[in-house]
């Protein structure tokens, strides 16, 4: 499965150029012959276009420069007999030649400098160029105008509209992620009003499940999980509050500019939105013994920086951690300047009671604290605790004197968040929470330092268990994971070759130099967000509408939705992409508005059946002469099975669930227990399944849910034998099949086959399908038939 590169270019390019281009794309030097042929073709093309001028450049360089910068010698570490792929390298050549500094034998003629200038301009990533707005007629949906214009230029007819049952199922799945009921399909099929389709669209956009559908995709970008990664992979029991925020934001159609600002800098807003800052708390962490805290923090900063690149800029800025980006104009300095925006942001868990919690908590808080104090007093730990604290502080400041204390301090500083800072405060200055975290750790894990005898004599293990029990008995306040600017102003340094310990020059918060300037925006996260959504930045709207398109067509107008740089794909429909980007930005950043625009287009409503006439010319449907059949994502497969079985619990929002899974799956994980969710909650939607990073729920693993270690803009879709085993044999799906069978059997014969098809596919069976099903039911009953129906390709596919 070698990925194809820049397919669109390949289709539109003449064969001989494809060879040259293929070489470039693979980072190889094209053969001289290929190169010359390419140049000739462009010349024969006849026009004095920029491309023609640029095409002369390899020849100019070969004639003028490669004596000193070629295969024999590479003065100044520069080699010009190989194709340069970056704008930056080309700019350097331009600068030297235009100023007359090079070649040393005398300045180049003006037309050659012009050629070099155009060549350098052409190497600028397409996505950096300001958004244009091509004129589109007002009578037709502009999407159709642009798509059909391309099709017409190639003499291709678009496909007919899909039938109504398919449209209903497609739209429900795309906008809410839920299969329509037979009644919902029927109602649409019968609706004779001219705007029946638009009415269905509006109804679904208003559904609370719309937010769930679009949150699912955003959570991949936000690398959301319910555990923190690393060896221990502790749970983040309140991570879901950020997930709820995302769902609500989509449901209320929060404008994307506000959505952006809240997540990157919600703590800095005049009216703070702290839940949204949970976006940057989804970063993985490590508590492994022996790992340096500064290193962990550095890796978190790398992640936050790269994530901005992927999510808003569509650029792989992470490449510049170790060196200047090889292909895109992102320097190492750019990368660390971007990182500097996050340098002073600190992770902060705050008590943020959920509705109904505070009253009860207040009622019992005093009682809890006095019981806890009594317990601590009963065990007489004060003196040993003070000694232990002193010992840890000593290990912190003078490591290497007592190995057992070194190890205990290392562990303490990892397990207790901000443990070092707490230890350095006098007990009276600590908050109750901080003191409790320290004492709890002492009771549980100080044995290695204070010695087993002392630990046993004080019965600390028993105390630890009692403290835990007491804690579980009393109401606690829920917490919120936030990011806040509370860290002292640490300077940011470039890290040489990306090595966290090897500090280079100091840099200040700034956006990449090759992108539009930041201007008056403040040099903080608020300013970064403002810049991302400013009119001057062409990337954010392009990248975002492209992902919306991807959700609704299975692939973006730019296939590489995570990479809009020089190595990424090019848009198949550049004018359409820009039109959508402008529409999105200029009309208030409304997701729902763009989604509505797209799904009401004739392009979206086409049939997804394969087009034999395009099988060789456009097998991947780049030209959009039809819709595409898309396998459902993991979460929606489970939703579909539970829904046809009538089992799905459609409650929106709330805590994560742990559905039943086979014994032993969670054992892979180091420290956590998979405590099965009881009652109806276990049937909640797949979006809410507890995402344990190091031992993910098997269904999620089997059906391509990204591991959520880093931001992911695009899921792969694979086919493995583990998928059928999962769907055939997992008790969850067996239960759903049994429930579906029972539902079908509620219908009197001879209506059952129709009912089964209506529930699963929203359409009536063909004669052949009816016969096959009836034959099967005769020997296997409806349970066997239900299992088979839920395992068909059609059931798992949005057509």
């Amino acid at each position, binding site marked *: 499965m070698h990925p194809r590169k820049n397919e669109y270019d390949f289709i539109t390019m003449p064969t001989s150029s494809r060879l040259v281009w293929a070489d470039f794309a693979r980072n190889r030097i094209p053969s001289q012959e290929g190169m010359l042929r390419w140049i000739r073709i462009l010349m024969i093309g006849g026009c004095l276009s920029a491309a023609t001028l640029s095409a002369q450049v390899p020849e100019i360089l070969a004639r003028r420069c490669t004596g000193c910068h070629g295969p024999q010698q590479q003065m100044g570490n520069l080699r010009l007999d190989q194709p340069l792929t970056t704008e930056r390298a080309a700019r350097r050549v331009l600068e030297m030649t235009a100023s007359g500094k090079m070649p040393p034998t005398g300045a180049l003629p003006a037309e050659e400098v012009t050629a070099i200038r155009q060549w350098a301009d052409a190497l600028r990533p397409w996505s950096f160029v300001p958004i244009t707005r091509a004129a589109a007629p007002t009578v037709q949906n502009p999407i159709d105008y642009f798509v059909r214009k391309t099709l017409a230029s190639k003499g291709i007819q678009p496909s007919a509209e899909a039938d109504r049952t398919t449209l209903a199922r497609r739209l429900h799945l795309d906008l809410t992620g839920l299969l329509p009921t037979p009644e919902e399909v029927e109602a649409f099929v019968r609706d004779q009003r001219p705007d029946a389709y638009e009415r269905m669209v509006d109804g679904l956009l208003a559904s609370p499940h719309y937010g769930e559908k679009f949150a699912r995709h955003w959570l991949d970008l936000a690398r959301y999980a319910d555990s923190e990664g690393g060896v221990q992979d502790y749970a983040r029991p309140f991570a879901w509050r950020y997930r709820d925020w995302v769902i609500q934001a989509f449901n209320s159609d929060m404008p994307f500019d506000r959505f952006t600002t809240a997540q990157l800098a919600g703590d800095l807003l005049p009216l703070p939105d702290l839940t949204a800052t949970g976006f940057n708390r989804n970063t993985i962490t490590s508590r492994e013994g022996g790992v340096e805290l500064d290193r962990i923090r550095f890796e978190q900063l790398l992640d936050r920086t790269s994530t901005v690149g992927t999510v808003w800029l569509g650029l792989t800025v992470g490449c510049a951690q170790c060196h200047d980006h090889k292909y895109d104009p992102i320097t190492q300095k750019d990368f660390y300047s971007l990182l500097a925006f996050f340098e002073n942001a600190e992770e902060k868990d705050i008590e943020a009671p959920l509705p109904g919690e505070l009253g009860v908590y207040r009622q019992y808080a005093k009682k809890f604290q006095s019981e806890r104090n009594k317990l601590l007093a009963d065990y007489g730990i004060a003196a040993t605790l003070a000694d232990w604290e002193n010992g840890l502080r000593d290990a912190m400041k003078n490591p290497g004197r007592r190995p057992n204390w070194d190890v205990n301090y290392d562990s303490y500083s990892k397990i207790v968040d901000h443990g070092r800072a707490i230890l350095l405060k006098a007990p009276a200055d600590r908050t109750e929470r901080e003191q409790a975290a320290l004492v709890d750790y002492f009771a549980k894990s100080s044995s290695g330092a204070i*010695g087993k005898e002392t630990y046993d004599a004080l019965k600390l293990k028993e105390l630890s268990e009692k403290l835990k029990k007491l804690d579980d008995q009393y109401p606690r306040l829920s917490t919120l994971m936030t990011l806040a600017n509370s860290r002292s102003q640490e300077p940011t340094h470039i890290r040489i070759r990306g090595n966290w310990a090897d500090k280079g020059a100091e840099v200040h918060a700034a956006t990449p130099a090759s992108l539009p300037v930041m201007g008056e925006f403040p040099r903080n996260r608020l300013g970064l967000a403002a810049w991302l959504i400013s009119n001057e930045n062409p990337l954010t709207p392009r990248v975002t509408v492209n992902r919306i398109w991807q959700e609704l067509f299975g692939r973006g107008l730019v296939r590489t939705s995570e990479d809009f740089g020089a190595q990424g794909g090019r848009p198949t429909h550049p004018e359409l992409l820009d039109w959508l980007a402008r529409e999105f930005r200029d009309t208030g950043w409304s997701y729902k508005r763009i989604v509505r625009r797209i799904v009401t287009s004739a392009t979206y409503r086409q049939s997804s059946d394969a087009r034999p006439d395009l099988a060789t010319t456009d097998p991947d449907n780049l030209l959009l002469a039809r819709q595409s059949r898309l396998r459902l994502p993991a979460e929606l497969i489970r939703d579909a099975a539970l829904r046809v079985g009538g089992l799905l619990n459609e409650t929106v929002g709330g805590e994560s669930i742990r559905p039943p899974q086979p014994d032993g799956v969670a054992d892979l994980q180091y420290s956590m227990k998979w405590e099965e969710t009881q009652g109806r909650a276990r049937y909640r939607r797949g979006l809410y399944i507890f995402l344990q990073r190091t*031992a993910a729920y098997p269904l999620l693993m089997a059906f391509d849910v990204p591991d959520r270690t880093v931001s992911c803009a695009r899921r792969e879709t694979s086919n493995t034998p583990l998928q059928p085993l999962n769907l055939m044999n997992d008790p969850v799906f067996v239960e759903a099949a049994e429930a579906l069978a029972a539902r079908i059997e509620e219908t009197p014969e001879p209506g059952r086959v129709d009912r089964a098809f209506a529930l699963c596919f929203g359409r009536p069976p063909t004669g052949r399908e009816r016969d096959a099903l009836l034959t099967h039911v005769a020997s296997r009953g409806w349970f066997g038939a239900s299992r088979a129906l839920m395992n068909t390709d059609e059931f798992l596919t949005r057509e």
Partner: protein
Amino acid sequence: MNNELLQLRRRTFLTSAVGGLGLAGLPGLLAADPFAVKPPHFPAKAKNLIFLYMEGAPSQIDLLDPKPALAKWHGTPLPESMTKDFKFAFIKPNAKVLGCKRPFARYGQSGAELSDWLTAWAPIADDMCIVRSMHTDAFNHQPADLILFTGHMLPGRPTLGSWVLYGLGSESRNLPGFVVLSTGKNNMSQAAQWSSGFLPSSHQGVLFRRTGDPVLYLSNPKQVTAEEQGQDFDLIGELNRARYEKTGDREIASRMASYEMAARMQLSTPELLDLSKETAATKAAYGVEAESTRAFGTNCLMARRLVERGVRVVMVTHSSWDQHTELEKDLKKNCDITAGPVAALIQDLKQRGMLDSTLIVWGGEFGRTPLGDFRNAEELKAGRDHHASCFTMWAAGGGIRGGMTLGKTDELGMNVAEDPVHVNDLQATILHLLGFDHTRLTYRHMGRDFRLTDVRGQVVRKMLA
């Protein structure tokens, strides 16, 4: 499942589900089959890989790289000049040296040096290429696991096995192409050893579990017999075929192929797990019958059976080697559990003529320090900390030059002194033996061509036969 039934099921399934489709004539279907066998870059020495992963990091000083000079330093710190460039996970550079108590002897014609806890390896000494000069970049478990298997310290990249599967495809049509078998405790890297990272998840390793079904959801639900399962598969095939004819989407054919393989996996795995046809001598050699070696020995035997059945990569992991304390007791215990079965595996493969085409690699994610970890006050219970600067691994079989010891460490085992081999070099060598130029086995992701060896790696020519 008897063979006859297997044949019968296969026939029905193949005819009913796929036979009528004429799949062979479909353009692009082969490319769509993630399991199709693909040729490597050049003719390979090995076609299978068994990685015996001793997770936690075995002490090379006490097993494979004797350091008699440590004796005179025992109980004292080294001079600062010798330790100033070092950082360790838990101990500080001023930690006291822990001498080695193990006697070493030479074995085989090649005179491989093994400690008395590894005498079980005497018969395979001439097959081993011992590399004493391994080094890596991380001295903490998780990042070191990651760099050993994915070439990079941060999570998210494909592992060695996934790369090999991506490059070569799978020869087995009944079993996953990349299988993981594990024993021991405190497995820290978890999926890091078998994750397909950004490669499609069809390339991920399949962990054969210790309890319940070896492969998740392998067994039919209890209310479904094998025959009924077959009938349900057949109806799925029939309905899929009808849908294919309506939509013409060749993805349906790929889905049908995966259902077909799942059905075959269900039928053939019980046969794989059934050891009753193995001879008593074989079972005894692997330690399958003895309590202490049963779990690991069975995994080693299973590795051979998997390779016999065309499985491309097998990871056999034993993860109890992190001896910060109780080195004397626990290191010996691990050797007692693993040394015999490992020797049996090599000999068994050799006897069956499979060793030449099967590459075996043994080792952990880093080594252990000559300095002691004295976190436990009793000196008898001392251990060693993590050591990234030098450690020992060995390889045998497919294309490896057996009976040699490569590389040297300095007198005290602090650093590599000769022929350094970075873990990326080892990866390049493994890929080379499997027929790949490691710089050309790449996958485009996030705008970049990624490879297992990241930006480094040199094939270690001296290891090659």
